[in-house]
């Protein structure tokens, strides 16, 4: 992947778009382990194959890229985590590709892999993470490991010194007899160090050349002296052959004989042959004419010819005809003494199958340094070639999809930036045409049941004119609109959809042979429009193409919905502001978090703040400091609970230079999902109302005080008048004539009446005095007391009183008593002379309120007076007919009002009356 592709991929992942989702879907389906890490190497993404490869549980954000693996280099040396290719790549060091590593899982199983890493950088170039592919190469490795095991078995059991030397002279391996020969107590004493230190100084140069020649691919024999670690000189003879090391490089494999203890020559060469045969690579030697002179076991395996069949044949039996000149070229290079290293080419097996091979070819010289032939090491690289090809294909697909996704990602960004709807639709269409590789396309929007073209590519006037308006069921787009599902027409010429319609000719005229129409469906399931792409030839769109189309259609539908919602919102917001600015109240809106984002004209007018410089202060600057804590608490409670905000507080009136009372209320505005999107609030000037209320309360208090004092003081002289008129009668009665006595009696009854008036008026003013009690009052008990108080009147009238079940009430005892005493008293007082008085007291629950009734069979009340009787001093009879002050029902009215109830009368004149009242529970 190129840096820009990786960048695009990063953006996709970061944005979490649907295109990114598509990548993930794709990555999941790949057989290659893919994972992403942050810069510290922690996993941020991994696919299924990565889970399988890891052999354990992966956890995002916690697990490290290498999980719990132990890592090894191809030569078996442990690879520290911080030096592994992936760690190096994340550190910003050049990322290695193609290296082979081995990992050991926690359960002890091992696998070989080749890592491919690409780092992700942010816009400033800092490394933010990496994308890593691990290609499992275990299978290809197994054969080599097997051969290695054979090699090891041979080496471990032989009494000869066997060693492996790198081209630079580093001793890579030496078996136990070898270590004894050089006098090393442990392998560490010599392995990893330069072999040249052990060679006698006068032989060192010769030995170096010998080593280089062997590492260059030639077999050779050398006699030389060594100086052991103990300083003992010894004469040695080495039979050496080139050998492919596990890391792929060619090294010297040598059997060394101690010439002081003569060992059979043949044994050594047999041993060498065994080792050559155990090699995983085909090792072939040929003379300068190209005739094969040696052929090892792996050559048999790889090329299919036995040694017998091959030796003596021309090397060209292995070379495909079209590559014959390669051999000529190689031979001429060899003649110049050059070595051909890691030459990748194709060779033919006995059965004719072609193989990918990597060749290392070295000239072979005789003791006099004259070329006598060539040694060829051939490695079968078919397996790794296949893997490489798979990765290349994968990369190509990834690149294609990435470019499509990048295009869509770009579009997503544009959707957020560009305001102009037609421009956006045109860009969407362009993207669709591009990523699906179509020749033409259009987007139609559904308006009033008709599809209208909103954007188009590659069509001429006649097509656009013909399809200006499409109805349900017409053409591919009309069918897609009707069904709400995609319609694909692979070839319009044979499709029944267009057969015999004028549309066919128009389509063909526009060069269209194939079309797909994808409906644009809202989140609510409504078809908003159609996205069609057209092709010049008959065609069946691929899955990938349709998937991309789906994503694009989703984005387009969302865009259309968003644009429509925005337009509606703009319109409603404009209406709202127009209305709000015309309102006499202060109107404001806030965000869901309580932050004020709008005030109407009245606010600026009242507060004196400038609309442009006010900023985001809210109402605090003019709020009375004493009201601030309560206001803050009420507001934060409202924000937290989503309940109505309702509070009274004072604002500073800069014009009148005083505080004014305001009542503020705010309600949350919720979206379809019930989420609060903003708060709508108003503040109403209630200062005048507050003032009137306060004045009224004061006036009421004064009036009560006045009435109380007046009533008390009025009673004193009345008592005197009454008592002294009695005294006059009792003490001087004999000296007065009958007329004087009658006058005295009028005087007394007038005073008595006045006394009653004063007493009732006193009661009337007292109604508002008592607070509403906290405890329930036993209404049944109160009515019993009332009946006792009225016992005289009841027995005199022989009245029958029935009392139903009455509920306890939260009403002051005195009030309840006054209420029932007046109503029951009236029922008895205004009885009909024609029948036995009967009074029923009842109560029933009506919608959470108690409905009481005091019903009689008395004289009844004319309809026209039914309101009037509750007024103060209102009477329907003279005091000669019925005694009374005209205050009793006014007291009842006042008591019921006091508890926010209602009282009224229903009556049939001459038949009786029913006084009813409701009281809240």
């Amino acid at each position, binding site marked *: 992947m190129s840096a820009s592709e990786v960048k695009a991929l990063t953006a996709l992942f970061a944005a979490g778009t649907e295109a990114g989702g598509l990548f993930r879907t794709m990555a999941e389906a790949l057989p290659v382990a893919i994972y992403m890490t942050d810069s510290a190497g922690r996993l941020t993404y991994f696919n299924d194959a990565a889970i399988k490869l890891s052999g354990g549980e992966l956890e995002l954000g916690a697990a490290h890229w290498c999980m719990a693996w132990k890592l090894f280099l191809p030569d078996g040396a442990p690879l520290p985590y911080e030096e592994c290719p992936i760690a190096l790549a994340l550190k910003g060091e050049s990322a290695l590709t193609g290296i082979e590593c081995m990992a050991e899982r926690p359960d002890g199983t091992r696998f070989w892999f080749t890592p491919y890493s690409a780092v992700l950088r942010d816009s400033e170039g800092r490394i933010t993470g990496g994308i890593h592919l691990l290609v499992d190469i275990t299978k290809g490795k197994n054969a080599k490991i097997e051969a290695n095991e054979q090699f090891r078995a041979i080496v471990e059991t032989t009494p000869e010194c066997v060693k492996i030397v790198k081209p630079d002279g580093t001793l890579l391996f030496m078996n136990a007899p070898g270590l004894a020969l050089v006098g090393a107590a442990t392998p560490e004493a010599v392995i990893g160090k330069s072999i040249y230190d052990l060679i006698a100084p006068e032989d060192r140069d010769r030995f170096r050349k010998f080593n280089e020649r062997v590492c260059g691919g030639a077999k050779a024999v050398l006699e030389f002296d060594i100086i052991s670690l103990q300083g003992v000189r010894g004469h040695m003879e080495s039979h050496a052959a080139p050998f492919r090391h596990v890391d792929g490089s060619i090294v010297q494999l040598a059997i060394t004989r101690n010439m002081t203890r003569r060992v059979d020559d043949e044994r050594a060469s047999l041993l060498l042959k065994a080792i050559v045969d155990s090699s995983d690579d085909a090792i072939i030697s040929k003379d300068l004419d190209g005739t094969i002179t040696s052929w090892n076991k792996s050559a048999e395996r790889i090329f299919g010819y036995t040694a017998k069949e091959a030796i003596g044949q021309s090397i060209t039996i292995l070379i495909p005809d079209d590559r014959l000149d390669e051999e000529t070229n190689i031979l001429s290079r060899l003649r110049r003494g050059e070595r051909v290293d890691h030459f990748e080419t194709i060779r033919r097996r006995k059965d004719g199958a072609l193989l990918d091979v990597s060749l290392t070819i070295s000239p072979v010289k005789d003791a006099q340094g004259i070329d006598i032939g060539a040694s060829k090491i051939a490695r079968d690289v078919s397996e790794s070639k296949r893997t490489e090809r798979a990765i290349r294909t994968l990369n190509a697909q990834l690149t294609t999809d990435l470019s499509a996704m990048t295009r869509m990602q770009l579009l997503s960004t544009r959707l957020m930036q560009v305001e102009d709807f037609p421009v956006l639709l045109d860009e969407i269409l362009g993207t669709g045409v591009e990523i699906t590789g179509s020749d033409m396309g259009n987007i139609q929007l559904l308006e009033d049941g008709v599809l209208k073209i909103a954007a188009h590519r590659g069509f001429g006037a006649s097509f656009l004119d013909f399809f200006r308006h499409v109805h349900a069921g017409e053409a591919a787009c009309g069918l897609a609109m009707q069904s709400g599902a995609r319609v694909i027409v692979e070839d319009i010429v044979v499709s029944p959809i267009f057969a015999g319609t004028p549309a066919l000719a128009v389509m063909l005229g526009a060069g269209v042979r194939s079309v797909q129409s994808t409906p644009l469906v809202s989140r609510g399931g409504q078809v908003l429009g159609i996205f069609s792409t057209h092709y010049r030839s008959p065609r069946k769109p691929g899955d990938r193409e349709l998937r991309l189309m789906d994503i694009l259609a989703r984005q387009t539908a969302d865009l259309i919905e968003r644009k429509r919602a925005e337009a509606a919102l703009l319109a409603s917001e404009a209406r709202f502001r127009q209305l709000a600015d015309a309102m006499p109240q202060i109107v404001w809106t806030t965000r869901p978090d309580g932050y004020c984002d709008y005030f109407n004209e009245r606010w600026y007018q009242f507060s004196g703040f400038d609309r442009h410089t006010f900023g985001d202060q809210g109402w605090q600057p003019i709020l009375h400091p004493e009201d601030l804590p309560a206001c803050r608490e009420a507001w934060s409670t409202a924000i937290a609970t989503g309940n109505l905000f309702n509070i009274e507080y004072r604002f500073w009136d800069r014009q009148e230079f005083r505080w004014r009372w305001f009542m503020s209320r705010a309600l949350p505005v919720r979206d379809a999902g019930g989420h609060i999107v903003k708060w709508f609030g108003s503040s109403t000037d209630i200062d005048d109302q507050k003032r009137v209320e306060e004045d009224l309360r004061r006036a009421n208090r004064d009036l009560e005080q006045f009435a109380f004092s007046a009533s008390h003081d009025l009673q004193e002289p*009345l*008592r005197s008048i009454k008592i002294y008129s009695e005294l006059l009668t009792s003490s001087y009665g004999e000296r007065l004539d009958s007329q004087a006595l009658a006058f005295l009696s009028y005087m007394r009854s007038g*005073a008595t009446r006045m006394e009653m008036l004063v007493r009732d008026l006193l009661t009337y003013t007292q109604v508002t005095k008592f607070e509403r009690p906290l405890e329930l009052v036993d209404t049944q008990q109160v009515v019993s007391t009332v009946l006792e108080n009225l016992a005289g009147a009841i027995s005199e009238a022989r009245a029958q009183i029935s009392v139903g079940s009455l509920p306890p009430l939260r009403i002051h005892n005195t009030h309840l008593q006054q209420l029932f005493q007046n109503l029951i008293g009236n029922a008895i007082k205004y009885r009909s002379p024609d029948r036995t008085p009967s009074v029923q007291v009842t109560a029933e629950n009506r919608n959470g309120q108690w409905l009481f009734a005091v019903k009689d069979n008395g004289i009844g009340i004319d309809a026209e007076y039914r309101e009037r009787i509750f007024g103060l001093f209102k009477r329907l009879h003279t005091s000669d007919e019925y005694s009374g002050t005209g205050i009793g029902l006014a007291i009842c009215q006042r008591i019921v009002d006091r508890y926010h109830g209602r009282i009224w009368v229903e009556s049939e004149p001459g038949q009786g009356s029913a006084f009813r009242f409701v009281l809240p529970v």
Partner: protein
Amino acid sequence: MRTGTKPCEILLAEDNSADIVVVRQALEGHDVDCVLHVTRDGAEAIKWIESLDSDPVFHSLDLVLLDMHLPKRGGEEILKRLQSTRRYSRTPVILMTSLDSRIVEEQGIKHPSLSYFRKPSTLDEYMQLGLMVREILQKTNSPESADQSGPGGIA
């Protein structure tokens, strides 16, 4: 009622002359043998009470008939002053009022021996005051409470 000894002494604090006449009639009507000291306003009543301690030989007190609403000083003040005397702090008091006794009770007036008389508007009812006074005097002068009462005694 009285048997030779000194008549009992009653303080009447009342501003209404019409009531004074009727109170006197009620006491006579029930044969209460007493000296009735009448004060017409609060200040006068307090002055009289203050003289009790300073002039123990000539003054004593067996009962107070107190109108709550007097000019100058209110009934509550008069009660307080009475309770601060050395010998008469527990003297029975009858509050006379034209108000409902419940309203008076709400005012929270406290005294060791307190009775209410609601001023009536009929002569018969007013006469009951005499009976009430007699009963209270009899009770306070009974042997078990004799040491607490004033120097006068009722036989």
